[in-house]
């Protein structure tokens, strides 16, 4: 990669990271804690919604966030022609 491609790669990586971390904070600290009382007025599969986010929803969202990250980074690597040769990335 040349310098310009590198900057572009890093910029898009950071943007993806920021978006995913914003969702991470919103479901856990937001839906699970700060706004839990308001959300508890809504019922979801028998759960008060805020309680569901705190005990189940946030965990499920976390798995999805990492899945999206892995998938988007893979696509990004491919777009920038990065092809890891596993043999080469081994430790000393």
């Amino acid at each position, binding site marked *: 990669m040349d310098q310009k491609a590198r900057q572009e790669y890093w910029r898009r990586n950071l943007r993806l*990271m920021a978006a995913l971390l914003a969702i991470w904070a919103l479901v856990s600290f937001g839906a699970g804690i700060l706004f839990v009382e308001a959300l508890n007025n809504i019922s*979801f599969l028998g759960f008060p919604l805020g309680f569901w986010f*705190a*005990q189940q929803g946030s965990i499920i969202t976390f798995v999805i966030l990492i899945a999206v990250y892995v998938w988007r980074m893979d696509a990004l690597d491919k777009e920038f022609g990065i092809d*890891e040769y596993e043999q080469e990335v081994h*430790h000393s």
Partner: protein
Amino acid sequence: MSQIQTWTLVFVVLSFSLYIYIAYASRVKDTSGFYIAGGGIPAPANGAAIAADWMSAASFISLAGIVGLSFNGYGGSVFLMGWTGGYVLLALLLAPYLRKFGKYTIPDFVGDRYSESARLIAVISAIVVSFVYVAGQMAGVGVVFQRFLGVDTTLGVIIGMAIVFFYAVLGGMKGITWTQVAQYSVLIVAYLIPAFAVSAKVTGVAMPQIGFGQILDELNALQADLGLSEYTSAFADINMLNMVLITASLMFGTAGLPHVIVRFYTAKSVRAARFSALWALFFIALLYTTAPSVAAFSKLQIIKDLDGTALSAVPRWFNTWADVGLITQADGSPISDLAADATLRYTDVAINNDIIVLASPEIGGLPAPIVGLVAAGGLAAALSTASGLLLVISSSVANDVYYKKINPQATEARQLMVGRIAMAGAIVVAGYLGINPPGFVAQVVALAFGLACASFFPVLVLGIFWKNCTAAGATAGMAVGLITTMAYMLWTIDIYGNSDGIFGIAETGFGAIGMLINFAVTIVVSQFSTKPSEVMQELVEEIRYPGRTQLVAKHAEGEL
């Protein structure tokens, strides 16, 4: 021998034989195999190993009880969100970059990126965090043996030590990894089968994550009748500030745990490190979304079984656990002190957190083989975490202290021997702590996360994302973060200072504040100290991009 004991023995012998066989089949001869399994573990296996490594006896045995009993439902969410949310941070901010940097341990990264004095602080923190944590695991092994096989606790711990000794000393990281894959399988099967069965029985919906919602109204109503706050109501037992701080401490602490981070070095490549994090959280989520359901089902069943029941008519599980002193009267005196014709009230009985999962098959009325399977699962959880921690201790001593500081000329064989001796020594100390657990272990385990959060997380993140973060800054930040957090904990924890602290912040939540202080100190000191060398700045830039470049290759060979 009762039917339950027979089945327990069958499952324990079967699972232990499997671990020993795997260890023998994957024994190692070089340091790279010993510390990081040669860096050649496929992502799903690595994920399962991370999950087993990280889900300790506390997750398997205590989590459901903590959520349902001690924290009365909603308050327990701090553990559910905190311990899983950390993986998002690990996956996005740390794992790929640390893998690219390509060293063995956290102290190794810290020492290379910053300085030798920073390495020393990191070594000490890693060893302290690991020993505190491992003592709890060994004590857990003793409890399971004692309860299910009637074996003396001491003998139980010694059996556990012998098994860990065999596969950890012989196989190092490689042996541990593949054993942990087996242990994950045992523990998750042992956790899910009773949970599905109980859910089907109580709600008619086999999937506990969904059945969970069906019983909340009933549970809330029962709790209200008993004069307790509702199971789902927010901030009844724990205020918003502490919810936020404890959750944050556990999240950032998980992202800084040495025995979890070392696992990303065992991945095949940067890409595999990312996938490892995904698999790990997926495997963990299977247990972590089930645990709150188990908590609610058990609590509902317990209230129904006990409240208003005559002591002569209680279910059998109640007597079994009352006999070993894990169910007592609310003031701690034994149940046997009650008159034989007494009628129980739920609020007059104290039930230990640790029995919820171990007893759930019995509470749900499931057959003996399942009870035996759960015991084997508890042992798998405790032993897998113990071995991961012991590896951190031995690699810190052998690699970071012996090889890097005492004898840099040591041959491969010699380093390997030191690693094995350190491992053996650590197992003996861990066993001793398990047999004679210092009273504060249970409290200190939760604090270990706070300490990891306040000491490691900032230096790792800044080390990767900020080229100008200096050695002096990181050292000062780590030291100040660690010292303020420890001081606050000693000041507020029940057995020492027992103060209310500042703004009523719980000692388990202070790690997040310690981390902010660490960030601030690191950033400020970095402005006024010598910048990292040109080569180091280039290297930090380099790890942002996947693929092998000459600079990173030379660094990994130790030529820089």
